[in-house]
């Protein structure tokens, strides 16, 4: 039996571990375009920030492949695949046959419209890109960050920590608009501007200036900005270029059933590339986050090795700490204005806390917490397990959740 895993991120790694646990003798191949050992991708922004060294990134140690008897195929991408003959064609011309396949190819950064072929214009998706940024940092006076999503936001925070002047361009009115609502976004924005971030709302870059290295950018509002480093964080797109769409259903991401199997039997998918059932939204959604990738990888691995395990569905959740602000957002935080949904919120300006809960009927489906986030896990568990709230919903707003507050 030959298991092939495309990708060595946390989904691929978790799957390989699950397969090896259930099947000691099978062959496991892992393909990755990165040639480093498996590492913690969410932590690369901390390397940029300078609080964590790159040597702390590996998640499983250098003997990972060896100890699990995995054959790594590093430094190559999958160019295309033949699902009938069960063969992968790699970008370096090699082929790799498989019996059971896991697509955990992750996601690639969304490109910008303006041509970005100058030096010192970076995406922030992998360790290599961040190490290249670190080389450019000593000569950086002013940095430009495109996009107010998680990546752009973490990049901006990291650079601010290093004392670099940062301008951030966001299309919507406040940063992290996909993760938080307007009030929490406003709190984040005011904290960031207090720390020296320049934010320009509603504009985007039309062209970059510079001869070999970037020196500035032209904006859609006609103005011009000087910068010697650009980080593009406009979100990610599932990496599905090699997937035959006539055989494997792809919507936003690869569509999977509740065993994480694609529409083509024997081919599974896990991680950022997957479009799975969202527990809060009750519709298919791409939740490209680390904890879901880890869970999906493990469950896909078990299913691949022949042990049927059901995947309950994914749930978007993020926790972000910036300077003096802790933000936790889980589930469907920006549910539309609809009588189906009840929204409760409490903004305490003295304590600088904010809580916003979204209910659908009796069920909690979304929560945003700013500061005092310790009990966020209880709310997450309530959403995940779809536990109906029969007691007073207002009590859930209290920062100190207790059983009593839920009952009376």
């Amino acid at each position, binding site marked *: 039996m030959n298991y092939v895993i495309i990708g060595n991120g946390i989904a691929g790694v978790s799957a390989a571990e699950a397969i090896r646990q259930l099947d000691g003798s099978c062959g496991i191949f892992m393909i990755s375009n990165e040639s480093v050992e498996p590492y913690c991708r969410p932590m690369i922004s*901390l390397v940029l920030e300078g609080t964590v060294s790159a040597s702390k990134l590996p998640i499983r140690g250098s003997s990972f492949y060896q100890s699990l008897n995995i054959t790594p195929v590093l430094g190559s991408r999958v160019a295309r695949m033949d699902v009938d003959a069960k063969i992968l064609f790699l970008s370096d011309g090699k082929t790799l046959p498989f019996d059971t396949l896991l697509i955990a190819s992750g996601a690639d950064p969304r490109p910008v419209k303006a041509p970005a072929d100058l030096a010192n214009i970076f995406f922030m998706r992998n360790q290599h890109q961040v190490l290249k940024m670190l080389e450019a940092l000593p000569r950086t006076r002013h940095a430009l960050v495109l996009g107010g999503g998680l990546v752009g936001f973490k990049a901006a925070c990291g650079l601010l920590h290093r004392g670099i002047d940062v301008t951030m361009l966001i299309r919507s009115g406040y940063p992290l608009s996909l993760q938080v609502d307007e009030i929490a976004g406003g709190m984040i924005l005011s904290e960031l501007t207090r720390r020296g971030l320049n934010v320009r709302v509603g504009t985007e870059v039309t062209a970059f200036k510079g001869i070999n290295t970037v020196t500035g950018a032209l904006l859609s509002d006609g103005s011009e900005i000087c910068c010697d480093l650009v980080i593009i964080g406009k979100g990610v797109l599932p990496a599905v270029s090699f997937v035959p769409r006539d055989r494997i259903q792809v919507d936003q991401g690869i569509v999977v059933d509740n065993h994480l199997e694609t529409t083509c039997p024997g081919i599974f998918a896990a991680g950022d590339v997957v479009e799975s059932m969202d527990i809060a939204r009750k519709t298919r959604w791409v939740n490209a986050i680390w904890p879901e990738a880890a869970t999906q990888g493990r469950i896909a691995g078990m299913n691949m090795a022949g042990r049927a395990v059901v995947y309950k569905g994914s749930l978007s959740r993020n*926790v972000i700490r910036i300077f003096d602000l802790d933000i936790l957002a889980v589930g469907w935080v920006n549910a539309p204005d609809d009588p189906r949904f009840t929204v409760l919120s409490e903004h305490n300006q003295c304590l600088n806390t904010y809580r916003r809960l979204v209910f659908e009927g009796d069920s909690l489906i979304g929560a945003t917490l700013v500061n005092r986030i*310790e009990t966020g896990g*209880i709310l997450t568990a309530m959403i995940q397990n779809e536990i109906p709230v029969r007691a007073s919903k207002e009590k859930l707003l209290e920062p100190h959740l207790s059983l*009593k507050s839920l009952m009376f």
Partner: protein
Amino acid sequence: MNQVIVHPERCVGCMQCMAACATAHSRTRQLFSAIRETPLPRSRIHLGTGLYAEGFPNRCRHCNPAPCMLACLPGAIHRDMQTETVYVDPDRCINCASCAMACPFGVIRYHEDASAPPKKAVAIKCDNCMERQQQERVPACVEVCKSGALTFEDNSKALKRKTDQVAQSISAGIDVPQGSPSFTLLNTIKRAQIAVRHAAV
């Protein structure tokens, strides 16, 4: 393997476990000097309220598999197989609060601690008082608990005792051995108060 077992029905909410826990995890291990330490030692057991406004000592369950361990980005949380204890390595912890999002019991806090590098806030949770256990002492919260709400015993024995109690209570004609009459009284009063309050509303 002995472990800390919580008996919420016996908790009177005196919070002595919290003081004992904070002291046991201080630098000097003495209450009177601990309160003058910087950072101020903090408890890893959190007293909340239960169903009938009785105390509820909320502490880490050392789950298996532990959701915090699966969620930890830098791999700072690990399980000691021998003692079934889930530990946070303060040197590896990056204080990202991913575990806050994962813990279904809300027992992880983030602050500076005597066990962590100076000036670094890290995730802090119950460590089953391993240091004390190595000295053959029971965990601090258990030692100080006067009402028997926290015991340190073999889980299977505790389970057996409870099962026997349940079995006895459903066998007709057998005198049910009551717990301490004062606890029964206390809990009855609390339930009655709540019932009265409910009736008034």
